[in-house]
């Protein structure tokens, strides 16, 4: 993927750039909003990673300008401002996801890859399939092999999210945000507990595991 990082902190930018390159992506860097706008207009990027507070032109203005030009490139906003209002503001300006500083690189990578997936022309899918695991979004049923698996509503949503992002790393914070809509980190390992419950339903009775733990990052559902 080709990714543009718009960030005034050069050290942070080169850290992100290095990480993205190591994960097999092409990453360019712009030092402020104006430069970022210019570069985003000049070349085709798959994803923009935009810092919120920058000199000359701040991130939100840059995103708004792009959206007014009908540029729909997915944007991940990076910000030290993490309250709900700040997020709402960022998403209103046209951001697609919001990551609060400080963050682990794995978190950033997971979110960038999740955004790239969103770009695929999203046909209204009624069925999700990963290996021999099938989810029917209309009937709200899950089948693995020939066995129907009974899930609680929240477990269903958790699995739905994992299946929609199958093959990608999904972090605990992403799950808390997207499945539970919580923007704080509980001290206890609530997500791990819920994942292990889900795992005992979808993986345990079967010879091959689909739900993998990615150390230091999160989880990945993969056939």
């Amino acid at each position, binding site marked *: 993927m080709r990714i543009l990082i718009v960030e005034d902190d050069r050290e942070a930018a080169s850290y992100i750039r290095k990480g993205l390159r190591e994960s097999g992506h092409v990453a360019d860097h712009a030092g402020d909003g104006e430069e970022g706008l210019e570069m985003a207009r000049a070349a085709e990027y798959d994803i923009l990673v935009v810092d919120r507070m920058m000199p000359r032109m701040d991130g939100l203005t840059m995103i708004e300008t792009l959206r007014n030009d009908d540029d729909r490139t997915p944007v991940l906003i990076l910000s030290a401002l*993490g*309250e*709900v*209002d700040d997020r*709402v503001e960022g998403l209103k300006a046209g951001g697609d996801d919001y990551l609060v500083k*400080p963050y*682990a690189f794995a978190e950033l990578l997971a979110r960038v890859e999740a955004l790239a997936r969103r770009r695929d022309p999203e046909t209204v899918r009624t069925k999700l399939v990963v290996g021999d695991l099938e989810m029917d979004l209309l009937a709200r049923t899950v089948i693995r092999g020939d066995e129907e698996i009974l899930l*609680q509503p*929240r477990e269903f949503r958790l699995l739905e999210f994992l299946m929609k992002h199958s093959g990608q790393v999904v972090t605990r914070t992403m799950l808390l945000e997207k499945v*539970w*809509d*919580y*923007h*704080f*980190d*509980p*001290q*206890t*390992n*609530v997500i791990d*507990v*819920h994942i*292990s*419950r889900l795992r005992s339903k979808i993986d345990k009775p079967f010879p091959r595991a689909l739900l993998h733990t990615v150390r*230091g990052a999160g989880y990945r559902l993969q056939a």
Partner: protein
Amino acid sequence: MQTRLPAILRTTAFRQTLLSAALFALSSFVILAFVYAASAGMMLRRADAVVNDEVATLSERFDAGGIRAINRYILQRTVGGGADYLYMLVHPTGRSLSGNLSGLPDTQPDDEGRVQFTYRRPRVVGTEDTEKDDRTARGRIVELPSGYRLFVGIDVDEERTLVDRMFNTILAASALALALGVAGGIFISRRFVRRLDLINDVARSVRSGDLKQRAPRNNTGDELDELSENFNDMLDRVEALMHRMRQTGDSIAHDLRTPLTRMRNRLDEALREDGDLEAREQTLERAISDTDELLGIFNAILSLSRLESGESRKSIQPLDPADIAEDLAELYEPVCEDEGLGFDSEIERGMTMRGDRGLISQALANILDNAVKYTPAGGAVTLRLRKNGEGRAEFSVTDTGPGIPDQDRTRVTQRFVRLDNSRTLPGSGLGLSLVQAIIDVHHGRFELGEGPGVSVDGRGPGLRASMCFPLKPDS
């Protein structure tokens, strides 16, 4: 005194008093001047009327007997002095014929022939010349046919003196009013300034670091007393904030030192673990989780200050607290089960309160985290939501852990306070401060009490933590 007086002259109180004194002096001057003008005018009109009557009498004489008759009349009147009027009859040649003046007044008469002038009072025969001789008179010069000219006047010296004295009195009274006003202004503003100075002294002491000073009160409830009260309240708040800030600063330094030292040691260890890649990786991973813990503390501090600054009040809206309780029950039930704890929830639906879902969830999650953390395996955690006796929405979490001793219950919501028995468990010491701050934003109340009692497992009384929030009035 020399530096003091100008200070007084600059005070608002002095300027206000001076202004009102000046207004008072001006208005008394205007009123008295009006009285003066009115009485002086009346006096002149009366004199003119008297003179007119006498002129009329003389005219009658003239019509009856000509100049001679007038001459005789004047001579009769003025002989022996002491006449009520002043007369002067002058021949067309300018020669004086009769009268008690030395000649016609040389003042230019006005259109009606009226003159006011100073004359030398004729000696009255047989009187001592003790009185002032130059006196003021007022009268009228009448042109008679055939060139004779007649002056009839009246002595107005006493009236004029009276009016003059009145005028001087008015001037003096106005000056006195002004002087009294200024003196009063100085007096009042001195008092005012002295009281203000006391408050200013306190402000100066506070500025130079003595936060214990308080402005004096006289408990009269006047403006200055009210100012002192507000000022003192503000100082109380500032002192409390400063105290908390200092305490927080100390605590931050103190509490961060431990994880930072630990992290430093781990990094040091990683450097020395040459060769053993796996061990190094593990050490580095632990260092990263130390960093995460530190960042968690910083995030908590940030959230706290944002909550306390009131910025988080924007996303407050009506909600059913049961939704929050049910979501968290569902989130924590498996966690409890994993830890070997029983979990139960009793949730009453159908209430409406105003709140921020995210924040209240965070507070409740914090309380549940603590319950899970401190309750030994085999215990139980219960989450309840009900409308309590006061008609408020009450979330409560009860556990069967060691509980918190009575004397520590108010202390645990302060920042960085960690009770001795919890120091070994992970945590920032900010969790309950955050809970308290979130509850404050929602005008709620936080209470800590005893749990179900010792009987459950014999290990402790347990803890009951409850948050009460006011309901929307119409629900």
